[in-house]
């Protein structure tokens, strides 16, 4: 019962909730990206690879320019370019989205290590590069509120950006012309085309935005708290984002909650590392919980359908 005690102790710490937001940030940004491309009718499997390349480019550019913000721009530009390469494969050359996505992911995991080796002579991490980090922000007023201040203030600038982007993506689909076009193109491309919406361009734009958001996630990983690039550092977050995106079903706010669930599990795993459960098991938990959450979600949707069917059938 030691573990239970550990968990309860952890749950009472404000720092734990702070860490939850921190862990959720890259998944949240990627979830938003996945959501936009998915609503435009393309499922972006290459998120994992995009994030990895962006994380790498951010570190390299910031090290050479000695300016964290230029490094950030480099990471975002990398996300933009990679997603446009994917878009070119899928939309112009009519290749299969899943296969192209997996190809890019494989390329990213090998390619980043290869270039890292060319630049630094190392294959594991960019410790010899003097890369920079993006700043954290303290929120005036809020930081002085007990507990809440400790949870909400002092986060990384990209964590705040991610939360603002949740509102932005929600607004995009709810109110803007582009959002309406993305929905139309994803749901009925023929209808969109006959009213003069340039279907392929809208899909390009959606994939580009998804690349930019994923690029931000990559920048957060390598320029957030650690300040270096290490091989395979995305650790499957790009795939997790596909699951959280599916749970969200197009709703940015639900996407945020699903990402926070992942953040919750991951920071819990971090806190429990000192307990006597095997480390590998603990590290596995966030991923398993997201899979369980997604499966449960699907089962619930299915159950509700069945229930509705039975009720309607018995109704008369």
């Amino acid at each position, binding site marked *: 019962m030691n573990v239970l005690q550990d968990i309860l102790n952890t749950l009472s710490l404000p720092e734990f909730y702070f860490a939850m937001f921190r862990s959720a940030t890259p998944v949240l940004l990627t979830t938003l990206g996945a959501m936009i491309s998915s609503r435009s009718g393309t499922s972006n499997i290459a998120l994992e690879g995009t994030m990895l390349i962006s994380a790498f480019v951010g570190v390299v550019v910031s090290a050479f320019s000695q300016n964290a913000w230029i490094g950030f721009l480099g990471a975002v530009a990398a996300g933009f370019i990679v997603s446009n390469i994917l878009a070119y494969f899928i939309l112009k050359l009519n290749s299969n989205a899943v296969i192209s996505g997996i190809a890019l992911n494989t390329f990213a995991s090998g390619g980043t290590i290869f270039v890292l080796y060319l630049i630094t002579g190392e294959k594991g991490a960019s410790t010899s590069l003097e890369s920079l980090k993006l700043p954290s922000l303290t929120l005036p007023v809020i930081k002085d509120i007990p507990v809440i201040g400790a949870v909400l203030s002092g986060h990384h600038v990209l964590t705040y950006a991610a939360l603002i982007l949740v509102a932005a993506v929600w607004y995009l689909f709810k109110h*803007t012309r582009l959002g309406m076009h993305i929905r139309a193109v994803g749901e*009925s491309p023929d*209808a969109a085309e006959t*009213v*003069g919406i340039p279907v392929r361009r809208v899909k390009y734009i959606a994939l580009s935005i998804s690349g930019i958001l994923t690029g931000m996630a990559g920048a957060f990983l390598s320029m957030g708290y650690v300040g270096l690039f290490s091989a395979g550092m995305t650790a499957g977050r790009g795939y997790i984002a596909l699951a959280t995106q599916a749970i969200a079903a197009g709703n940015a706010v639900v996407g945020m909650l699903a990402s926070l669930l992942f953040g919750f599990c991951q920071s819990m795993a971090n806190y429990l590392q000192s307990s006597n459960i095997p480390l590998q098991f603990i590290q596995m938990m966030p991923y398993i919980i997201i899979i369980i959450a997604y499966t449960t979600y699907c089962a619930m949707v299915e159950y509700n359908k069945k229930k509705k069917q039975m*009720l309607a*059938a018995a109704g008369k």
Partner: protein
Amino acid sequence: MGQGIILEAKNITKVYPGGVVANHNVNLEIRKGEVHALVGENGAGKSTLMKMLFGMLTPTEGQIFVDGKEVHFSASGDAIAAGLGMIHQHFMQVPSMTVAENLILGAETGTALKVDRKKAEEITKELSEKYNLKVNAQEKVEDISLAMRQKLEILKALYRGAHILILDEPTAVLTPQETEELFEQLKLLRENGHTIIFISHKLNEVKALCNRMTILRDGKTMGTYDISDLDEKEISRLMVGRDVSLAIEKEEEEFGKTVFSVKDLVYADQFGKTRLDHVSFSIREGEILGIAGIDGNGQSELVEAIVGTLKPQSGAVFLKGTDISAYSVLKRQESGISHVSEDRMKYGTAPKLTLEDNTISKVYYTDKLKTRGLIDSKKVNQFTNKILEEFMVKYDNSKQAVSELSGGNVQKLVVGREFDYQPDLLIMNQPTRGIDVGAIEFIRKKIVEMRRQRKAVLLVSADLGEVLSLSDTILVMHEGRIVGYIDDVKNTSENDLGLYMLGVKEDSRERIGGACHE
């Protein structure tokens, strides 16, 4: 009415990649303010021509003029800008969006950052009143009827400033009453100065509505005529190239004992909508039972529940006195059910496989085609050729893919396969949808022949003329219920059926109970 030519297509030729010539030197002249019919069989090139006029395809050769000026459309947007509007047969709408949102989609009110939904709803109301096309602006498209979706489609074109409207087989999804209403609305549009191109193969409708018509056959224009100059027989001959008779000759026959029945079928779909509401009926030997109704009123679900691809929540299906409700699809087939499905390319065939593969798909596992336990290609070949020849399928060789055949020939293959199976119950779901007149004539005759062989036939069709001419008894479905039982088919008109289909008229439960025989 002005006599000026508003839209002209000159010597249009369209060759598809792959070498199919869909249009060959086609000429079309539309006068301002007229309702112009474009008639021709399926596959005559009507849709290809219209897609070129609307910028969805580019002609291989030839010119298009709007208001006397030559135009080159590279996308639908160009055609819309030139004042054309197209009402597609498959409505071009986004189901999850509202009527108003669909109306403005692509030409939104408000700014890029804030679409003005209120304004959109106001515009919808305004246009709807002006042209007497009643729609509900705030409802989602997925929740409205097909007739209302069609009105929305017309409003969409008008909102974009179209003064030339192209309607592609608009009455295919409507009841006779809704068709009449549509014609009134189209006449109103004509009075308002709009020009209308009406694509159809229903000649009575063309006669009732249009001023002039252009006839297409095999991708060529067979001339443009004033409607009053030709009678239906002459039009029909120009369309098909020979005299066709769709009149059905069938002898009076006594029905035998009950072969098939369903009892109290109830099915609600995943959205909680009741699709089958206590449906019961039976079919006797030598009887063709027709099911009429607007598409989407439970007919598809009924057929699926019978063939076994859908599991109803309650009710039972009986074949020759045995309850087959728990049987798998295959076991139901083997018990004696044949099924010509409503979508021949999706459910009826595997389009990329060969004619042989598709023809043997119901019997490949039986000993019939095997020699020493292995499938014998010689037997397969003989079996296929026998069926294809008997059912007059036009084909090059039995190893070509089904997708290379025309719609009529694919349907004849499917019908041949199902009829050869010698079933007790034959389900024909939309047997002649979208095929040429020659194939329609052939398939209808074959159905009557099955009746002569004392089979029970369930005929589901949106073509009321077909239901009335083939059926011995008719059931009408509305919102999943049987609302009408007609045993005196000879003295029933399409309008009579229409009243049931709209839900205006409903027979008493006792009378509908007459559809069940012991």
